[in-house]
Structure formats: structure tokens, C-alpha cells
């Protein structure tokens, strides 16, 4: 052991220190890989933890919850549920969101404090130490005034609010003034949303949220000793139609499923970076072995065992992996916040957005994450280093002393690799035909992986072809490049096995970039086409604040009347929605005015062909049009029937048509307003599409409406053009994370080319020295090496384009459909492909300059003397 460390210090550490640049690049590569992986994991954990914590702190000791089909229900139904008392006292709840003038959001909960204190812990800040905890009655009396509100100390303190302060909150489309009547300590529900929580009396909350006569849910804490599962079943059996019973944890499960697909995609992309990092390890250790071949020989001659040599090089890999993983942990921590932000906007759950971003900054890397980082990086690093390290251990003492150092055997074109490639491509195709597993596109990603490896195995043959081609090309080219070209081709051609690995890694990265770019490009085209087709209204209106995460109806009748009264307004299509559960999955149920839609608007229908007349027929009938994602997720086609929970219990609806929608990947089912109101009761719309008379100036009407309605009913008006801009903006920001990952992958791969060439040059020290000695100018040698780099780049890009296009097909038609359920009109961005190819050539040429400089520094004399 002692000898090992001594040798390790002299033989490995010294070398690492000498070759700092290479070491730093390798460590950076690993740390990027580890960092991305950890960031996604942390982001995932943060979002879910935050949501879980918020759900739990809000749920308190609630064992079961009763909710309505529409997310709320008629409060008089309570009088038919006196029997619930047997299980525990039900506490009625109203929840919603309010926006403070600062723009911050508060989760507002309206409860009957007399009941709710049994379920949740509310501790009021006491002004005098001797004041006792207020009784239920006194607590209630704090809240009975409609303008009373209790905030958390955590929220109030930094904002200078105290008991008695006034606060203005926007709820839905109305702004209301409240008086702070008390401050909650950081316990129980007050912890939700990091203190952005407000408590109101249930009556005041009903009034403020415009939900008189309705309740959002009943929370029940079961009497001790009752089994929640059994009671849940008992309650479910007795509940009036239109009501459902659930456990608070189930809500959490739904969100978990919602995020899972998204994070799975991120994780798959992130692992690319790790793969490239491993490739770097391989390269580094290879270089290490090449440069120290003689020394290894000497060591062996002096009696060092093979296993000792093996251990030395593995130790090098291990050391780099350890440092890389360590740096990666810190990096992952930094990147996590960005990833959380990306998740939150994608998941479009406001709930998570607010909490997660706050807590992400505080989320610390736990022991588990550290173990994971090392647990992934170290074995893989050892694996990557095993090949070169074994090679080193096989060096015969004499061989090294003699200076024979050809590591790579020459390559003969072989069918072997082509057959493997073909088999992998076939496997990829087969996998791409498979269904998603548990809603996760696992086979899709496996198909992508198979295609990538298939592409990688093309590398040796492709490289051989390229070398031959370039030799012929060089022979015919003008004098200035002839020799360099021929030499470069010969050089690469002679090192195909080694270079192939670099080419394969680079090709995989480029292929990913190309695939993702094609997909994003296609998606963007599709969405802008869709927006063009479907966004026909001139002005869109929605409340400034959505009082619920799912966009409940909030626009008051009087606002609609005021808009209708405008002389330039021709028609209004109002849209109401609520979050529903279909077959255990969250979906959106909506209502629109089909008449107006048919007359003025347009939906892009996928099927059937006569969708418009189907839509017309569906008015007045129990029929829905569903979004494409709904149709795909639940395998429903026009003519099929879907069973939905309504206020009066489960009802069947006919699927009239399927329409394209890119706004929501959970699935939407829309029915005509009259049908909706028949089944779900009256509901105010959550958004309006306003059609103007021909010739009206949308901008001017918007201004006028905003003036006449704006200040009192906080409605946000947007013209058609600005909505389109907004859609594209949201779209672009959603995909920002994929671009970022792409940049990482390509950077690391670029570094790979650099180190591959360095390895090659070190391997060819003698040849280069001889060349130099024979009179090759510095310019010649530089040109030769740059040509080699460009050759590598070209072959990589060629394979990259091939696999990229195949991958993009898998992404668009398999992975996307399985995880989002959207149709993407495939669009091949030819200009982009040409441009990226040129870019790659430029980057690889640049990457060749540094190895060239290294080559020129070789002490020619020394090697020539040896020869």
C-alpha cells in the first residue's frame, strides 16, 4: 500500500499537475455531468417536497376530504350529510389565491374557525406574554367582519404590516380592502407557501371570492381508532351524487405524476452530459497511458506488478472522478434553481411555482445526493478507465524500453460494425413502436439510446471512408494542401480505433443537438400555425388574479355586461373551466359558447372530417369535444363515450370531435355552456374571447374596455397580437432548459475533440519530430493537424445528422406523443442543419489549433536521436 501511494504521487499526481489543462478539462466534464444529474434530482425533490409540505401543512390533521365534481359544491348538500358526524366533525373550506399590491400571491383559506381548530393548528402571535391562547370564540370574533383577515407573521413583518394595518388584495377580478386582525406564527397552515398564507372566516371568503352558497371542500379528521381506508370507502358509498371523497395525499400523488413525465425527459437529457464526461475520462487515461508508456515499461522492468500498474491508472481515473463529482455537487446545487424554474413554468402549476422557487434556494444537498453523485461517477469512471488501464498493464517491460509505442492497430474496414449498427437501428425502430410504460416514455428513450449507439458504431467505417475520400481529394488538390491532406488522412486512417471513440461521442452529442433542434423547430412551427389558426378573437380578457390554480370562473356578470355594451363588440365567447379527475388523472373540464365559436372563432380539429357540423349538433346534447392529448391519453375517438363526474353523479358524454391543443398536456374536455351549466351548475367564466365588429381598432377598444372596467374589476385585456407573442414567449422559455442542456453537451464534446487530438499528437511525437526534422514547416504541421480536426468534425457531423434526424423522429412521434400527447407537424430545418454543420467545422478547426501548438512544442531532437 505504501509503495502504491508513493508511486501514485510520483507517477500520477505529478503528471496531473504537469498537464493541468487536460486534467481541468476532464474534471470539468465529469462535474458537468454529475451537476446536471444532481440539479434535476434536486429540482425534482424540491418541487415535490415543497408541494408536499404545502399540502401537508394545509391539510393539517385532515384524514379525508370531500370535494365536488366541479371542485366545489352546493353548501346545502351538507344538511344531507349529518351522518358524517359519526366519523368526525366536517370542517367546510373555501380556498383561493389573492394578489397583494406588491404582486405577491397569497393562498387564502376560509374556514369556520370553531370547527377548523380541531384539524389545523393556528397559533396567533400574542402581544402580551401573559395572554392565553384565544378561545375558539374569540378567534372567531376576530374574523367575523367581512374585511377581517389574518396573515402570517412571516409575511407581515418584512412588509411592515401589523395588527390593524390595511391591506389591499385582488381576488379574481375584484380588489378588496382588508384589515389585519391577527398574525399567525410559523406553524400549521401558516407554513404553506413560505408564509404567503392568509386566513379568513368562511363567510368572508365566500363573499370575497364570489362563491356564496358554495363550498370548495369538507375536511374531516377521523375520530381516533378509525381506519381511514375503510371509512373512505364507507363515506364514498353514502355520499350524495356529485361528491367525492379522497385522502389529502392523493392530491400530492396527482402532482407527482404530472411532474414525473417532465422530469423523466430532463433526466434523460442530463445523462448525455454524464456520458460525455465518461468519454473524457477514457480519453484522459488513454493519454496518460500513451505519454507514460516508456515509464510504465521502466516500472515493469523494475519489478512493479501488472496489477500495480492497473491500479495506478485506475487511481488516476478515480481521483478525477472524485474531484469531478465534488465540484459537480456544488454545480448541481447552483443549477437546481434554474431547473426548478423551468419545471414550474412547464407544469403550469402556480402552486408549485411560488413555493418551489422560494425553497429551491434553501434546498441543501443531502447525504443521499452526495452518495448518489459519487455512486454514479466513480464506478462509471473506473469502467471508462478500465480499457486504457488494462492496456497499460499489458505493456511488456522490454517493449517499453525499446520505445515501441503504437497502441492502435491499423484498421481494416469490417462488416462487423455495420451489422451491429444495423441491428441497433432495427432495435430502435422496434422499441419506437411500443407503448409508454406507466405514462412514461421509457421505450421511446430506449429507442433513442439504441439509435444513438447504432450511429456510434458507424464511426469506424465512416472514418475509414472519410480518410480514403480525403486522401483522394488531397491528391487532386492544389499543392499547398496536398501534402498536409495526405498526411492527415494517413494519420487518422492509421488511428481509426482510437479516433472512432471520439467521433462516436461527438456524433452522439451532435445528433442529440440536431434532434432536439429539429423537434423544437417543428414544435414551434406547429404551435405558431395552431395559434394562427385558432386565435381568432380580437381581444382576450381574463382576471388579473386567478383565484384557483386551475382557472376557475371569476369574471363577474357585471363586467361581461359592460363589455357587451361596448358598441364595437360583436360577440363574446366565454370560457369556464375546472379541474376534474378522469380515471384517476387530473384533466380540465371546460365550457365555451359553441354558437359564438362556430360563428366567429375557429378550432383546429383533428378528427372527424365533419367536425364543425358535429360541433353544431352537440349543442344541447351531452357531448364534449376533447383535446388531442385527452384523446391520446385515454384512447378516445369521436363517437366514443366518456363518463364524467357531474354535480348529479357520473354522466356519460359523447366525444363529438378531437381538436388540437398545445396549451395543456393533461387533457381537456369542453362542452357547450348550456350543457355545462346543466351538469355542473352555473359558473362564471374564467376568460373571455371578444370578437369585434369589422373595422374596429382592437387596440383602441382594448384601451376603452380597460378604462371602463379595469380599475374596479381587475381584468386583464390583451389583443390578439399580444396573445400570440405571449404564447410564443412562453413556448420559448419552456424549452430554454433543453437548449441549455444542449449547450452543455456540445461544449463537453468539443473538449473531447481537443483531448482526442492531443492524445493522437502525443502518440505521434516521434513521427512529428521526424517530420519536423525532415523540414516540415510549422505552418505545414499546423495545417495538417487542423485538417485532422476538421476531418473528425465532418465525420461526426455526418453521423450526427443521420442519427439526429432519426432521433428527432422518435422524439416527435414517440416520446412527445407519449409524454405530452401533442401532434407535431414535422419540419426539417434545412438551413439550420447547414448552418450547424458549418459551425461544427469551424469549432473543430479551432479545436485543432491548440493540439497543433502542442505538437510544435515537441522537442524534435530528442525523439529523432532515439530513432
Amino acid at each position, binding site marked *: 500500500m505504501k509503495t502504491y501511494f508513493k508511486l501514485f504521487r510520483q507517477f500520477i499526481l505529478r503528471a496531473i499537475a504537469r498537464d493541468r489543462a487536460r486534467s481541468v478539462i476532464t474534471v470539468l466534464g465529469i462535474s458537468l455531468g454529475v451537476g446536471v444529474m444532481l440539479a434535476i434530482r434536486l429540482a425534482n425533490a424540491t418541487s415535490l417536497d415543497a408541494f408536499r409540505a404545502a399540502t401537508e401543512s394545509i391539510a393539517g390533521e385532515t384524514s379525508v376530504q370531500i370535494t365536488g365534481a366541479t371542485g366545489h359544491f352546493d*353548501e*346545502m348538500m*351538507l*344538511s344531507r350529510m*349529518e351522518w358524517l*358526524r359519526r366519523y368526525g366533525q366536517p370542517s*367546510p373550506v373555501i380556498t383561493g389565491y389573492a394578489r397583494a399590491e406588491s404582486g405577491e400571491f397569497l393562498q387564502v383559506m376560509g374556514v*369556520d374557525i*370553531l370547527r377548523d381548530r380541531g384539524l389545523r393548528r393556528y397559533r396567533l402571535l400574542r402581544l402580551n406574554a401573559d395572554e392565553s391562547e384565544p*378561545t*375558539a*370564540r*374569540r378567534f*372567531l*370574533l*376576530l*374574523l*367575523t*367582519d*367581512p*374585511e*377581517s383577515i389574518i396573515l402570517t407573521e412571516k409575511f407581515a413583518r418584512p412588509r411592515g404590516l401589523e395588527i390593524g394595518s390595511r391591506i389591499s388584495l385582488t381576488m379574481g377580478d375584484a380588489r378588496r380592502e382588508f*384589515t389585519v*386582525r391577527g398574525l399567525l406564527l410559523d406553524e400549521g397552515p401558516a407554513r404553506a407557501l413560505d408564509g404567503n398564507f392568509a386566513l379568513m*372566516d*368562511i*363567510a*368572508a371568503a*365566500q*363573499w370575497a371570492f364570489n362563491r*356564496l*352558497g358554495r363550498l370548495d371542500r369538507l375536511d374531516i379528521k377521523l375520530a381516533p381508532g378509525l381506519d381511514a381506508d375503510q371509512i373512505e370507502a364507507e363515506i364514498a358509498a353514502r355520499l350524495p351524487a356529485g361528491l367525492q371523497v379522497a385522502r389529502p395525499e392523493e392530491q400530492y400523488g396527482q402532482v407527482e405524476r404530472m411532474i414525473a413525465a417532465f422530469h423523466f425527459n430532463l433526466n434523460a437529457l442530463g445523462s448525455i452530459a454524464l456520458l460525455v464526461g465518461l468519454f473524457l475520462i477514457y480519453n484522459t487515461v488513454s493519454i496518460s497511458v500513451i505519454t507514460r508508456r516508456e515509464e510504465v515499461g521502466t516500472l515493469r522492468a523494475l519489478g512493479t506488478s501488472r496489477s500495480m500498474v492497473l491500479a495506478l491508472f485506475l487511481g488516476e481515473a478515480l481521483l478525477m472522478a472524485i474531484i469531478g463529482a465534488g465540484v459537480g455537487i456544488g454545480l448541481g446545487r447552483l443549477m437546481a434553481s434554474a431547473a426548478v424554474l423551468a419545471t414550474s413554468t412547464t407544469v403550469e402549476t402556480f402552486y408549485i411555482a411560488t413555493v418551489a422557487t422560494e425553497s429551491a434556494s434553501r434546498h441543501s444537498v443531502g447525504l443521499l445526493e452526495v452518495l448518489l453523485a459519487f455512486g454514479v461517477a466513480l464506478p462509471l469512471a473506473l469502467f471508462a478507465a478500465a480499457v486504457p488501464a488494462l492496456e497499460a498493464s499489458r505493456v511488456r517491460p522490454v517493449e517499453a524500453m525499446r520505445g515501441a509505442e503504437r497502441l492502435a492497430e491499423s484498421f481494416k474496414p469490417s462488416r462487423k460494425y455495420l451489422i451491429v449498427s444495423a441491428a441497433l437501428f432495427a432495435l430502435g425502430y422496434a422499441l419506437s413502436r411500443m407503448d409508454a410504460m406507466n405514462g412514461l416514455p421509457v421505450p421511446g428513450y430506449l429507442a433513442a439510446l439504441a439509435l444513438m449507439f447504432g450511429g456510434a458504431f458507424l464511426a469506424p467505417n465512416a472514418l475509414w471512408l472519410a480518410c480514403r475520400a480525403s486522401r483522394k481529394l488531397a491528391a487532386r488538390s492544389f499543392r499547398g494542401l496536398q501534402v498536409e491532406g495526405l498526411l492527415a488522412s494517413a494519420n487518422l486512417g492509421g488511428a481509426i480505433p482510437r479516433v472512432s471513440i471520439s467521433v462516436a461521442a461527438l456524433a452522439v452529442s451532435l445528433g442529440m443537438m440536431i434532434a432536439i433542434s429539429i423537434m423544437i423547430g417543428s414544435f414551434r412551427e406547429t404551435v405558431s400555425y395552431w395559434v394562427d389558426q385558432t386565435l381568432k378573437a380580437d381581444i382576450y380578457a381574463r382576471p388579473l388574479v386567478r383565484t384557483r390554480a386551475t382557472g376557475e370562473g371569476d369574471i363577474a356578470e357585471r363586467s361581461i355586461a359592460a363589455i357587451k355594451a361596448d358598441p364595437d363588440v360583436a360577440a363574446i365567447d366565454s370560457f369556464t373551466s375546472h379541474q376534474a379527475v378522469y380515471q384517476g388523472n387530473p384533466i380540465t373540464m371546460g365550457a365555451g359558447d359553441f354558437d359564438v365559436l362556430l360563428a366567429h372563432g375557429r378550432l383546429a380539429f383533428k378528427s372527424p372530417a365533419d367536425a364543425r357540423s358535429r360541433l353544431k349538433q352537440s349543442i344541447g346534447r351531452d357531448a364534449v369535444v376533447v383535446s388531442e392529448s385527452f384523446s391520446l391519453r385515454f384512447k378516445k375517438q369521436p363517437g366514443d363515450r366518456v363518463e364524467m363526474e357531474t354535480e348529479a353523479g357520473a354522466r356519460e358524454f359523447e366525444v363529438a370531435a378531437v381538436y388540437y391543443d398545445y396549451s395543456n398536456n393533461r387533457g381537456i374536455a369542453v362542452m357547450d355552456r348550456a350543457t355545462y351549466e346543466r351538469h355542473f351548475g352555473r359558473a362564471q367564466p374564467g376568460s373571455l374571447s371578444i370578437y369585434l365588429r369589422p373595422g374596429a381598432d382592437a387596440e383602441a377598444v382594448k384601451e376603452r374596455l380597460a378604462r371602463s372596467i379595469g380599475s374596479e374589476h381587475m381584468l386583464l385585456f390583451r389583443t390578439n397580437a399580444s396573445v400570440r407573442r405571449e404564447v410564443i414567449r412562453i413556448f420559448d422559455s419552456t424549452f430554454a432548459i433543453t437548449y441549455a442542456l444542449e449547450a452543455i453537451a456540445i461544449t463537453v464534446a468539443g473538449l473531447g475533440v481537443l483531448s482526442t487530438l492531443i492524445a493522437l499528437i502525443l502518440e505521434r511525437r516521434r513521427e512529428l519530430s521526424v517530420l519536423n526534422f525532415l523540414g516540415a514547416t510549422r505552418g505545414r504541421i499546423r495545417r495538417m493537424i487542423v485538417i485532422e480536426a476538421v476531418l473528425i468534425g465532418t465525420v461526426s457531423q455526418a453521423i450526427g445528422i443521420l442519427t439526429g434526424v432519426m432521433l428527432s423522429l422518435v422524439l416527435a412521434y414517440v416520446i412527445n406523443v407519449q409524454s405530452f400527447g401533442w401532434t407535431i407537424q414535422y419540419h426539417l430545418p434545412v438551413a439550420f442543419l447547414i448552418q450547424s454543420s458549418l459551425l461544427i467545422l469551424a469549432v473543430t478547426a479551432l479545436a485543432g489549433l491548440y493540439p497543433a501548438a502542442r505538437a510544435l512544442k515537441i522537442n524534435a531532437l530528442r525523439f529523432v536521436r532515439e530513432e
Partner: protein
Amino acid sequence: MRDEWFCEMKMNKKVMALMILAIIALAGLNMYGRRFGRDEGFGEKYESNCEDVSSSFILHPSSFKMAAPDSASEKSPTGSTTLQSDSADSNKQPAGPSTNSKTWREAEPSYRYSFPRDHASHPPYRIEWWYYTGNLETLDGRRFGYQLTFFRTGVAFEPANPSRWAVRDLFMAHFAISDIDGKEFHSFERINRAGIGWAGAETERYRVWNEDWEARLDGKDHLLKAFEGDYQLDLRLTPEKAEVIHGEDGVSRKGASAGNASHYYSITRLRTGGRLTVGKEVFDVEGASWMDHEFGTSFLEKGQVGWDWFSIQLDDGRDLMLFELRRADGSIDMHSSGTLIDAQGRATHIPSTEFSLTPARPWRSEASGASYPTLWQIEIPRYGLSLSVSAVFSNQELRTPDSTAVTYWEGSVTAEGTSKGSKVQGRGYLEMTGYAGRSMGAILGNDE
């Protein structure tokens, strides 16, 4: 008697000041009250008249408990006199015409009772309670005591919020069973807003409820129901005497000023039968109950720390109600009084000067730390009554942290003694308040 009253009043400056403020407040409320009577058509009987107020004054101490929300509302969020008013609020409000605001009605003389209507609720008044106690026995002689009380206290006279959950009144209830032979005391409490009908009190016919606890009229009979897990009560009470209206001219005065009063009556003897569930056992029981019903507005008496209240049904057919108010300085308030009801139901007022109460045999509650006398000697020389009243067992203490937040002792008692020399026995209920925690006066003066 009234002169006497005023004389003593002068000695207490605090009480005096309070009285003056109350008078001022009343002037405004009075004018308003008349208007309300006409506008709302609640009944001619609520019309006030300006006749002099009589001296007769009976106060059921329980009403003090209910004064709590009044003072609470002083701190309550509304702070608006249009929605509510109480003595504290009215102190701040200048007396004068406040006819444009709707508020709680004061008890005023000339109230003409009409039964059974007056058993039902009186929403124009802020405070109202229905109070049942009784001693029951199974066929084989196993004895139980029970208490079932419903409270209604107004919070906002006309809530601005149209929601059903808007709190106009708070409904509270206490339920206790004394297992006399088992020496076990079981007490429960409820507090609810009306909401969708979880609790309430009807105005046309008598029915008051708090979830599944209920008291209502069935013909002349009162039906009581209370369920709390293994402790249940289901009783039918048949009045054996007519209602005794306390005070004079339909009003029972509580303070020196004309308006500080309530409407208060009792049915002192109701033949009772029904079923009790105690633990896992169900008992068919019979016995006698006592019912009180009082409604009015707020009345605060600072300086009073608590009271001791007796309701005793004697075996000679007479019923006795007595209470004394204890002052902070240890003295007995001169507002203490009682009523003696003969077998035919005729009532005689007993002023504080005519009786004496002597406590003995203190029992200390482990739970609250309070020490209650469990043996009392009652002397009423004028009627030759000498009674020794003792608790059937000591621990009959109610702690009501969730509803009224008052800890008090309310339990079954037996009485033994002589009436003009001949032996007399009786059973009844004893209520003792102000022995635990903050003094009653302080509680009444500050929120709870």
C-alpha cells in the same frame, strides 16, 4: 326595597359610573328600540312604556356567563355600531338619536309574555339561554343528575355579508350527566354558528338545537335530546307548574338603570321521564327537572367575581331559587336574591336581606385548582326555612375551553332541613362560578 338599593349603590362609585353610562346608552337604544318594535313587527308586546320600574329583581347568574361575547364584541373586528352594540360600545357612543342604525333591543318593562310563543327565540335581543337541570332515578333507585343548556349570543345584528355562514349569532351548549351512585361526572360542550343549520333557535315555535342536541316543545311537553358518543339523553318533560315570571312588569332588572334588565322566567317543576345512556348502559329514568329561559341584552357588573345559585325542589311541593353574588372584597352583593314558589305556583321574592348562605366542606378540583364549597347552610328566617344543601358528590366541575371558556361547578345536590319546625327534604342543582381562573368580573370586563 329600591331605595335601599340606591343607597348602597352610592357606596360603590364604580357601579355608579357604570350605571350612569348605561342610562345614557339606554336613552339612545330605547328610542331605537321603539322604532324597531314597529318596523319589524316583532309584536306589540315589545313596545316599551315609560312606567316606573319595579323593585323586583331576579337575576339568573348564568346570564353573566353569556355577557362574555358582549364585551368580546368590543374588540371584535366590525367595530361598527350599526352592526352591534353592547354596554362597552354604547359607552363610547354618545347617547342620542341613533334611529338610523339597527341594533339589539333592551329588555323593557310592560313586556307581556305569551306562552308557548315566548319559549321560542327572541332574535332582537342579544343574549338568550335555555337552561334545564334535573334529578332522575331509575326504577331500581339508581340516581342521575343532568344539565342541558343552550345559549344564543348575538354577534352582529344584521351582518353585511349575505353568506349563510355570516355570523349573526353564536350558539353554544353545555351538557352534563352526574352519575350520582357511580360518582362520575361527564360534561360536554358545543359551539357553532348557524351556517347551513348546524345550530339555531326558531322564533315561531320552540325549538333550539346545536347539531344533534335539541330542546323543543311537543304540545305542552318539552323534549330534550343530547348525544355525545356513549353519553346520551332523551327526555320528555311535563310542566307541573306554570311559568314563574321573575321581576315585575315582565322585566327582571339587573342594574340600577332602567334598561339594564332582562326578561326571565322559570318552570320550576317538570315531571321528567325518558332514557339516559351512560357509558355502555342505557337507563329508563324518571324524576323532576327545572327550566329557565332568559333573554335580554348585556349586563355587566364589575366587581362581582362570581355567584352561587341554588334551585331546590322540596318534598312539600315548594320550590326555592336563591343566589348570591360574591364581590371581589369578599362581601356579598346586595343584588343577591331568591324566589320561593309554593305548591300552586305562586312566587314570592326573597331579597338579599332575608336569607343567608354559609359555605362549608371545600373540595379542591385537581383539574382547575379551584376550591368549591360542597356543603351549604341556607337560612331563611322569615319562612322558617333552614336547609343543609350538599353536593351528591364533589367533582361536578365543567370546564368549557371551547365554548364559553368558563370553568364552573354545576351539580346535583340534596337538601335536608326544617320548615317551621317540620322536617323537609329536597333535591336540586347548585351552580358555583368564579372559583377558577380569572375573576368573573375581569372576564366580563375583558372579552372572556
